[in-house]
């Protein structure tokens, strides 16, 4: 039995407002940070279709809407650039 059984990994979509600290105490690993971009307030709403239980963006079932699926937000890529790729909590997952 794992000692970590009370852990429940989730994916946070929250954006941290706190600014970076001084370089002297900035962890070396954060030097790899790329594609830094401001995060705007999402203009789209995500819901679940009550009948099919499929993902819905602005009232349209995602899988049935090519315009959505072409967008990186639904392309399910593993590059961390879309809203699906939130910040992992207790999990390393791409």
């Amino acid at each position, binding site marked *: 039995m794992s000692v970590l059984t009370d852990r429940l990994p989730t994916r946070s979509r929250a954006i941290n407002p706190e600014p970076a600290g001084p370089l002297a105490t900035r962890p070396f690993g954060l030097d790899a940070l790329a594609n830094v971009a401001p995060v705007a307030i999402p203009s789209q709403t995500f819901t*679940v279709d009550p009948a099919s*239980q499929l*993902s819905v963006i602005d009232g349209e079932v995602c899988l049935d809407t090519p315009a959505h699926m072409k967008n990186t937000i639904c392309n399910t*890529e593993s590059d961390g650039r879309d809203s699906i790729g939130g910040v992992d909590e*207790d999990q390393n997952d791409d």
Partner: protein
Amino acid sequence: MTTPFGESTRGQAPRVLVVTFALDPTADYVLRELNARRIPFWRTDLADFPTRSTLSAELGADGRWRGTMHDTARGVNLSELRAVWWRKPTPFAFPDTMSGPEQAFAASQAKRAVSGVLGSLPGVLWVNRPERNADCTKPRQLAAAAEAGLHVPETLITSNPADVPPFAERCGGRIITKVLGGIVHTEANTRGQLYTRRVPPEQWNDPRIGLTAHLFQREITDKAYEVRVAVVNGRTFPVAIHAPDGAARLDWRTDSSSLRYSAALLPREVQQGIEAMMWRLDLVFAALDFIVDSRGTHYLVDVNPGGQWAWIDQTRDAITHALANLLEKGSTT
């Protein structure tokens, strides 16, 4: 309560629970297949609890929890639940008027109750158990891979900058660093990614390495291509990923629009190693990343227990059906 087809679910309450965020097109492929098969399921997110979903469970004298977890449209009878697909849920959500300490208390209660009740139900298939995902840290997965006979690049995890130069020398002077967790980082209302990057000699003893633990690996300099392998209950679905010269050559995630995919076959010893590693990690599903060098050696570099797979056309349908079969069956045997 009705099915997506308007039929009564009386007598066929959902036996499959899918836990994920409201936007999850990868999961949608499988859910669409379950709908086509008329397999009742309930999709929910932890963020729905307790404002939009309810848990009610009572312990019987036989040690079994009985009750329901449901929202206004659907739910599961705990006695009938057969499979849980743990995808990418977002955290429990509580009223904004709760103070920080109150929210922490509420989250602690919810976390232990939901995962504890569901996790103690007998005979339920988990894909995967969340604690197994949590346990699948980079150090543990690399150790499990090596124990299973898979090749793993020489790896150093250290908070001592003095460890890095000799390690780099042993690696022929070519090392990379990558994060131990997820690649997304947010701060100052911005969002960025932490991709794999080379560490040049002038940075080998950077004192800021000592500010926390860091992972360094030998760079596979004669990389031929990479392989993404989805594993579903022992079945493997490998796809070769070919990146052009440039940033994506070191980390294909930096320019995923430039990638080309092709069919891949895994050597027998790699297949056997994957099976042994998955057993050691107690995972039913994972998306694995291998680097293949010019001699055909497969180096395991990452295990993603809830990893993505649907963006690759070549294997999407096969993985969709394998996962749907598994959830429908509710058993790995």
